């Protein structure tokens, strides 16, 4: 298996709060890796520290052999690391189609030169349309993002990540707050991406889904890795069971 990303000794402190405290992980090419953990375990913080939203306090992140820790988020996106947000961040005033177009321009945002390049070219529109059909947003393509439901917004998050043609896609709880029907649709979508050989990191609170789609699972608790392995190994790990039972609110 070929290594895509390696995280070593990652630390993310906020003042005295140790949100991530020495985290190691290897992500392989074409692998679907799950990150699970109780609420407040630091999953989203981990994403933010990897994707450049935060600058990690310490540690090393290597992507395709290059050290990338501390690189700003927009540079990470250009390198081929795409992420979705747990709390959707739609461009509310734009149509769904234009939301996807905006993300398709990932390599076009070069500053003043970008003034001289038209956004809606046939090639870009074709790419956006293909992704929109893939994730099931076609019926709302001409609607404003402010006018569609949460289920569509979650898919929009995935669509915007996919249209950047990422080498690694990082999904932050794509199913949270959705109906069972919508969850199944998202799960199927992730399975399809997986079959195409897409490298995926998935944060998910819903254990059955994670067990179903992931090749490997890492368990995070209080900013530390407490277990890692195949879904079956993790399921029977004593520490994992404790971490989850110790948590009152299992959303």
């Amino acid at each position, binding site marked *: 298996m070929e290594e895509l990303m390696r995280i070593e000794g990652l630390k993310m402190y*906020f*003042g005295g709060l140790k949100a991530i405290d020495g985290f190691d992980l290897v992500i392989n090419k074409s692998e679907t890796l799950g990150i699970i953990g109780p609420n407040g375990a630091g999953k989203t913080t981990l994403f933010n520290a990897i994707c450049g939203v935060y600058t990690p306090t310490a540690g090393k992140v290597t992507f395709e052999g290059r050290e990338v820790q501390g690189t700003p988020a927009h540079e990470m996106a250009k390198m081929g690391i795409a992420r979705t947000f747990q709390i959707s961040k739609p461009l*509310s*005033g734009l149509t769904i189609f234009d939301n996807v177009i905006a993300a398709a321009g990932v390599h076009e945002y070069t500053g003043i030169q970008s003034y001289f390049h038209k956004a809606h070219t046939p090639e870009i529109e074709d790419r956006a349309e293909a992704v929109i059909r893939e994730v099931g947003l076609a019926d709302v393509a001409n609607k404003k993002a*402010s006018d569609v439901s949460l289920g569509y917004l979650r898919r929009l998050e995935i669509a915007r990540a996919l249209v950047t043609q990422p080498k690694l896609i990082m999904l932050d709880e794509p199913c949270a707050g959705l109906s069972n029907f919508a969850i199944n649709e998202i799960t199927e979508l992730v399975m399809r991406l997986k079959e195409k050989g897409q490298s995926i990191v998935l944060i998910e609170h819903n254990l059955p889904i994670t067990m179903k789609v992931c090749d490997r699972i890492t368990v995070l608790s209080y900013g530390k890795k407490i277990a890692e392995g195949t879904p079956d190994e993790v399921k029977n790990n004593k520490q994992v069971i404790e971490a989850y039972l110790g948590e009152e609110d299992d959303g």
Partner: protein
Amino acid sequence: MFLQQLINALTIGSLYALTAMGATLIYGILGILDIANAGAYLVGAYLGWYIYYGTGSIVLAFLLSMLAVGLLGILLQRAVYSPILAKPHTLSIIPLVAAVGLFTMSSDAVRLICGPNSKAYNLKFPVETLRVGNVVILPAWLMIFALTAVLLVILWFILNKTKLGLAWRATAGDAEIARVCGVNTDTAMALSYILGYGFAAAAGIMTGILYNSITPALGEVPSYKMLAIIVLGGLGNPMGTVVAGLIIGIAEVFLSVYTAIPIPKDAIAFVVLIIMLLVKPDGIMSRKNKV
């Protein structure tokens, strides 16, 4: 000389603190920059003047003016600000424009109703001046100190020792969570406005007494200066506002007396503000350290 200037500076500073307190309380809850607070300051000063000349009692003037302007504040909050904030995707500049409109209206309404000329409180104190060694103290200064202190203690008491204050602090901390926990955020908003506008009215009357003159342009300088003060105080932090008000009072008096900076007195607050934001973008006493 130095001590004289210091006392002078502290008087002005405490007046600034009181003037900006309203904007701070409102920002703390609604997150809007309410320039119209300076309108409350102006209207309060005029109402106070009419009540003082109607009844001859300065105490009544303070109480009734503060109450009336406070109620006006609640009315504006209900009729203008809350509906604007209730609309989705409101740009931060939109409520500010509403506040500017209200302030413009209040200044012009005062001019139309009360006339463009200045009015004097001509408040008589038992003594003309007090002398402590070389230092001259005007009784108006003492009154301002005392009243500001009393009002701030009342504010502190309300915010920290009452149920209303708990609701205020909870809402200022995180309105969503407060609502989920059953705090009546509406009450907190109303409290912000009645206290905020009431304090502004008191500050207006004190300014009128201190300079013995009120004009329809009275609110102009405070309208922007109080913005600088509330930012310096960490936006929405009442304690920080007191400190910031005093700092600006001191900076104004001492910079204009002891240095030759080419900046007029009223712009000094912004010079201090801009320098401070360059050094510490969160304000000197930021309450929340956002991560």
